[in-house]
């Protein structure tokens, strides 16, 4: 039976061979055919030679989660044949380079083998070692076009856009596409039963990764100072910010309306952000878990000294160095309470690049409104993979919320100014910026201070300030993005998740419903949790908490912060470094329900 626009395939190559551009080409071509598509780049922490995979899922129903089952494997890396063959779904296909014979032990009776002599064809058609290697990739893209019925006009158009100004490159790429396409058409029964058909589902969408979207959010939020230390998987966020600033923030004289500081380490990166925030700029850093560990000292200072800062944590697999090129949600606990002493931080949890853009803007508003560090926790899957999302939109009436900052005029007429005095009773004091007015001066310090910003070792004076800060942060629970809740009265089972597990959960809910298991859904989007979060958990007999870490960190946070008993919170986890799939959610939920029954 044909499965049109509902299948997944995987391409296994070695990194550094140029396969990434071929894979991107295939992904983009499907997107341009109007078909919902998701790509997951599974790459090693290495520059050249180690195995790398690219997974493409086509879903006419718009499911975006990773699937662990593949209808077609493009197995071009002999080093991983064994593993790759095993991942093909029964009845599926394996495409391999038949220039060399395939080891008999790799044969599976339930898989069809498609041999294409890619190396041989390319060696004959192209000169030069590098070109032969590169064109092998484009040739398999051509073969896939025939096998999966990728629109060749779309492919040709994309090559033209890419190489329009370099006719020689254009010619060799088109030649490679044709080589693969013609061989496949001649040799196999094309298309395969799993194939594509043009749709009209992506017209108002874009194909973008979360780091690029977050960087764009920083530009639109008016961030002017960025400080960072290179770390996977957050580096592309700062690269993108730099690129957008070059485009949008250079004045007529060629002068820059931004400053990007590549720091000596993460301790310095956050120090620069805190310094810039203190001086009145919208400032941010982007990093990953190891960076947050290093930044914790300054984060505590910014919390206690009440300095705005925005920190993007593009989470990767920990602990320690962990697996830098694999995804995880392992920093939920750390970011919520980063630094020594009593601290608690505002956290935002985007689930896709669209929210990465929106929450980036929101993070700056919250940081300045509440005068405190704000974390945006995405992950490698959101940050580095290309997602199909609705086009980003911008409200031109938006103006940044700079919070309570007294200017020169206000200070001139003020009777007095005390930095940490709760004048309005909302827990948020007024602040001033250096250089404004003699009456605005105060001393920022991480040591004990009273409401007048004076040094103190007095128990009451100390307690008054830290209690007010606690009230202030708690108040932020009403200002962070509220949870997404889909609930029907009478349902007793809840499914709760965070961030990038969203797609897997939505798909799992549909599949569970088909199996007669009806669940309500809540995705938390901000911390501290608003009242709705506790309300949802209490309203259900059992809540399955889906997340990507070993220790059930979201569940711990929910327990600590809402007081909901642990019996109401069942944990579903998947933390080996790959994004969550509906399969994992369903398996986890069913196992627990059956055990209970």
């Amino acid at each position, binding site marked *: 039976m044909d499965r049109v626009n509902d299948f997944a395939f995987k391409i296994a190559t070695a990194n550094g061979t140029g396969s990434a551009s071929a894979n991107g080409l295939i992904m983009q071509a499907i*997107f341009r055919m109007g078909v919902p598509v998701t790509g997951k780049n599974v790459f090693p922490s290495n520059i050249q030679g180690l195995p790398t995979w690219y997974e493409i899922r086509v879903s006419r129903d718009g499911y975006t989660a990773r699937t662990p089952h593949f209808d077609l494997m493009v197995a071009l890396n002999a080093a991983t044949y064994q593993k790759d063959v095993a991942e093909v779904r029964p009845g599926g296909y394996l495409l391999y380079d038949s220039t060399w014979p395939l080891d008999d032990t790799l044969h599976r009776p339930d898989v069809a083998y498609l041999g294409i002599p890619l190396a041989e064809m390319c060696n004959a058609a192209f000169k030069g070692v590098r070109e032969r290697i590169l064109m092998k990739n484009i040739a398999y893209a051509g073969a896939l076009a025939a096998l999966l019925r990728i629109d060749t006009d779309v492919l040709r158009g994309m090559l033209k856009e890419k190489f329009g100004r370099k006719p020689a490159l254009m010619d060799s790429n088109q030649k490679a596409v044709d080589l693969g396409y013609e061989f496949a058409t001649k040799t196999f029964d094309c298309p395969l039963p799993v194939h594509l058909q043009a749709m009209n589902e992506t017209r108002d969408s*874009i*194909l*973008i990764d979360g780091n*690029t979207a977050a960087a*764009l959010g920083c*530009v639109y939020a*008016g961030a*002017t*100072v960025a*400080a960072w230390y290179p770390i996977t998987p957050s580096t592309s966020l700062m690269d993108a910010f730099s690129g957008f600033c070059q485009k949008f923030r250079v*004045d007529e004289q060629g*002068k*820059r*309306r*931004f*400053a990007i*500081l590549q*720091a*000596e*380490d993460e*301790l*310095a*990166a956050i*120090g*620069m952000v*805190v*310094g*810039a*925030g*203190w*001086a*009145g*700029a919208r*400032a941010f850093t982007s990093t990953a878990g190891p960076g947050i560990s290093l930044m914790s*000292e*300054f984060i505590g*200072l910014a919390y206690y000294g009440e300095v705005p800062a925005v920190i993007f944590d593009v989470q990767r697999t920990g602990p320690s160095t962990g697996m830098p090129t694999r995804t995880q949600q392992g920093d939920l606990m750390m970011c919520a309470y980063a630094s020594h002493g009593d601290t608690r931080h505002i956290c935002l949890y985007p689930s896709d690049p669209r929210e990465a853009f929106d929450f980036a803007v929101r993070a700056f508003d919250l940081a300045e409104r509440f005068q405190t560090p704000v974390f945006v926790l995405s992950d490698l899957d959101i940050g580095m993979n290309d997602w199909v999302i609705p086009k*980003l*939109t*911008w*409200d*031109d009436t938006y103006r940044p919320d700079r919070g309570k900052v007294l200017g020169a005029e206000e200070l001139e007429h003020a009777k007095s100014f005390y930095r940490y005095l709760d004048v309005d009773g909302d827990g948020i004091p007024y602040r001033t*910026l*250096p*250089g*404004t*007015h*003699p009456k*605005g*001066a*105060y*001393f*920022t*310090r*991480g*040591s004990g201070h009273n409401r007048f910003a*004076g*040094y*103190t070792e007095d128990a009451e004076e100390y307690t008054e300030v830290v209690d007010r800060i606690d009230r202030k942060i708690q108040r932020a629970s009403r200002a962070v993005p509220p949870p997404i809740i889909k609930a029907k009265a009478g349902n007793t089972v809840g499914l709760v998740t965070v961030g990038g597990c969203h797609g897997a959960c939505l798909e799992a809910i549909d599949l569970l419903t088909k199996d007669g298991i009806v669940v309500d859904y809540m995705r938390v989007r901000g911390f501290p949790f608003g009242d709705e979060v506790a309300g949802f958990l209490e309203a259900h007999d059992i809540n399955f908490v889906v997340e990507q870490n070993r220790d059930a960190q979201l569940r711990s946070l929910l327990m600590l912060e809402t007081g909901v008993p642990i019996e109401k919170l069942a944990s579903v986890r998947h933390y080996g470094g790959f994004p969550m799939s509906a399969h994992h959610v369903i398996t986890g939920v069913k196992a627990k329900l059956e055990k209970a029954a």
Partner: protein
Amino acid sequence: MTFLPKPRVHHPALPKNEIGLTRRDYEGTITTLCAGCGHDSITAAIIQAFWELSIPPHRVAKLSGIGCSSKTPAYFLKEAHGFNGVHGRMPTLVTGANAANGAITYIGVSGDGDSLSIGIGHLSHAIRRNVNLLYVLENNGVYGLTKGQFSASADRGSLSKKGEANTMEAIDGCLLALTLGATFVARSFSGDKGQLVPIIKAGLAHNGFAFVDVISPCVTFNDHEGSTKSYAYTREHNVEIVQADFVPPAAEITTEYEPGGVRNVMLHDGGWVRLRKLAGDYDPTDRDRAYAYIRDRHREGEIVTGLLYISPESRDVHDQNNTVDRALTTLPYEQLCPGGAELEKLQARFR
């Protein structure tokens, strides 16, 4: 106890500077350091320098790390914003603040533990970036607040209060700064205000990172016989090799070289540093020879002081970044946000 205010009643006869402020207007709260602490003398020199330069106190930001020295920003310029950050990482705060607002004057105060141990990486990189600030290292060779451990600037063989000899080589902040490409390197002594005040003024006017190492004896833990950072030892062994004078802009200087070994170096804002050579053929614009000279003299048991090196062509971090002339904090939002139409256009890239 750094919150004790000083009485604000001024004697009417106190002299006023160009902007009508007295020296008292540049003071802070009452010091809580030990009586006789070198740091308090440095504070007095800082107050004098700012007053003489007629810099409005509120147009200054004063930052520090952790330690005795780092408490001192509370004791000067009460109308300036202060930031007592975390141990060793003040340079990062200044780097960020200066990136955001390069239009105000920055002074960073640090100690030898802060600068040469926990914070040596940040100090090094702030020097490399040439962040525009006056960096005062109040150097006493000892950890005072934790009661007397050797710091990284303690000389080999120097005795602790308990009589133990330091076995490791000292890190010399000035030599470090020279190797890292510092554009302004000076050493002075807290007990020599006449030398220190002009150095501070020149450092404030310098466009870039002005590193000033000030030997500042710790009267409680490191002022004994056998210490090489005591008042007595420093008085006896310091040799001034270049005397610096700061000459404000619009002064009558017209030539780089004057008779009598006087060399004038023009600063970014049109001011001058007038360098009077006191030692032979020493050239304070020759980095390599400055380095060799300081080392040679140190081997002879001498601590050379003065404005040891100045680069006439200093480009600070904003010059290198090509930042707009005004502070980034003053840019209107309209100049920062590309707007909805641009976003729509941009997204063709993501199709």
